[in-house]
């Protein structure tokens, strides 16, 4: 059962090659000396140098980072509130509408979300820029946060909260002292999800922004439309490197954490047995 048949080995090999080869090629060619991206002309890091002296890219990166940090933080607060309301809030007026509005943005094509938000911003006469991108990103990423957090809320033992309430905690204290620490991992992964969604978004940001703010994906988009360029390869490699190291660090940390929890549980068992 646990021995893979040749067919399974082949499909895994091809599957992962298909997933990772294009990115690997992208990284390799970012070190290419030639301006032509498909012809190898020797190793060079000059494109990284040019990228770091390109102010337009650096500005766009700064705008993107600002938008991502602010929007994912607001989205995490709102999304957690929404998840708590949906799972624990009981009945209230317009609950169905509320849960509909949480799930609809998950499947909505980006062009429609972007278009409708732009029409709203113009309708109320709002100056478009960093602020409007933050509003747009917060709106769709709070729904993702809410789904992640509510799946954690739905599975944990409600008796813990009830015990706190019986012992005299106010609902707010019970949330702060019991619920929040338990759902914390889901809240953190919700924040990370919102953060990467915001970093990655091209379509909604293109609709929501005005002439004053350009995000990194928009900048990449406008140069990619003109064709392949080694500078974009260098930028992509940096982003891929950042993501890969982030994910590896996160998985190491969570592995160490789970090992520690296991040790503590074992220690507790031993203590009980003695």
């Amino acid at each position, binding site marked *: 059962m646990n021995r893979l048949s040749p067919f399974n080995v082949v499909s895994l090999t091809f599957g992962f090659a298909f997933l990772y080869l294009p990115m690997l090629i992208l990284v390799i060619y970012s070190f290419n000396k030639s301006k032509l991206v498909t012809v190898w002309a020797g190793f060079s890091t000059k494109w990284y140098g040019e990228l770091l002296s390109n102010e337009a890219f650096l500005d766009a990166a700064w705008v993107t980072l600002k938008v991502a940090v602010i929007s994912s933080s607001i989205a995490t607060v709102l999304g957690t509130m*929404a998840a708590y309301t949906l799972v624990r809030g009981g009945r209230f007026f317009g609950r169905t509408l509320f849960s509909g509005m949480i799930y609809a943005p998950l499947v909505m094509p980006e062009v429609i979300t972007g*278009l409708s938000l732009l029409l709203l911003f113009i309708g109320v006469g709002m100056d478009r820029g960093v602020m409007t991108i933050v509003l747009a990103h*917060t709106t769709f990423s709070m729904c993702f946060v809410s789904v992640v957090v509510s799946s954690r809320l739905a599975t944990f033992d409600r008796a813990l909260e009830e015990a706190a309430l019986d012992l005299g905690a106010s609902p707010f204290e019970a949330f702060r002292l019991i619920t929040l620490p338990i759902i914390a991992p889901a809240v953190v992964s919700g924040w990370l999800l919102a953060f990467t969604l915001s970093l990655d978004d091209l*379509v909604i940001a293109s609709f929501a922004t005005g002439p004053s703010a350009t995000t990194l994906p928009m900048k990449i988009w406008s140069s*990619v439309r003109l064709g392949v360029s080694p500078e974009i390869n260098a930028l992509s490699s940096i*982003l891929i490197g950042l993501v890969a190291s982030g994910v590896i660090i996160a998985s190491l940390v969570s592995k160490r954490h789970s090992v520690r929890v296991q040790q503590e549980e074992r220690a507790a068992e031993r203590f009980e047995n003695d």
Partner: protein
Amino acid sequence: MFGLVGAPQLAFCWINDLRRFVLIALPYFWLLALFLVPFVIVFKIALSDAALAIPPYMPTMKDGLSAMFLQLDFENFVFLTEDDLYWKAYLSSLRVAFISTVLTLLFGYPIAYAMARAPHEWRATLMMLIILPFWTSFLIRVYAWIGILSTEGLLNRFLFWIGAISEPLTILNTSTAVYIGIVYTYIPFMILPIYAALERLDASLIEAAEDLGCSRMKAFWLITIPLSKGGIVAGCFLVFIPALGEFVIPSLLGGSGTLMIGKVLFEEFFSNRDWPVASAVAVILLLILIVPIILFQRNEQRQQDAEG
């Protein structure tokens, strides 16, 4: 005496009620203002005349609500049916989304199957490797294919080098490139639900079928496929729904050769600046999407019921 005890308790209740109200109201009103209201505006503009709808389009509201409704008409929708560009774009989006969904299933199923068969200690790593590309920029993953698929690209060089072709193939700027792009970016959405279904599958069922004289192949068709149907259906919808409104992939890989509705909407809005038509395009895309979204939710519900 009574009042002295009651007052703080009343205040306590009142503060809790206020907290509960804020807890519900804050995300609620955020979504109402930034999700629902914009949709109403899209519907309204789709039903307006171009002259009124180009900014500032709000003046139609000034004449009062009844006047606003009187001015609504279906001209933009009639326009969409008259110009065959839109018909073709909707049909070709449906075709591209359908074909790519089938291709994603054909490539994704064997991978999910092999993952579910892999030794236990590998599975977490394999899962992480499938999810990892999600965290990388979508735009960059699509961009990576331009250098591979172009006429002087790596794929053509490789095929030329092994002697499979003598003339370079034109792949970039055709629908083939769009299929490759969609399969590449959306295959994790297909693999994960199928893997989840296959992992739960009880291996003794297949052993029983084989003991009872089924061939391997027959056991696969009669047991494995039906028991992973929920995962297959979920995966297909998760690919089909976003692929239908896709904008980045057809624009970068499909060139002018592929017509997709997301691209038409974007161009109608930014290049032609025809907002009412763009809004009407959006409304129809939404109506087309409602059917698969409802079917998807039913499938999810049915699976939850089956588990519970």
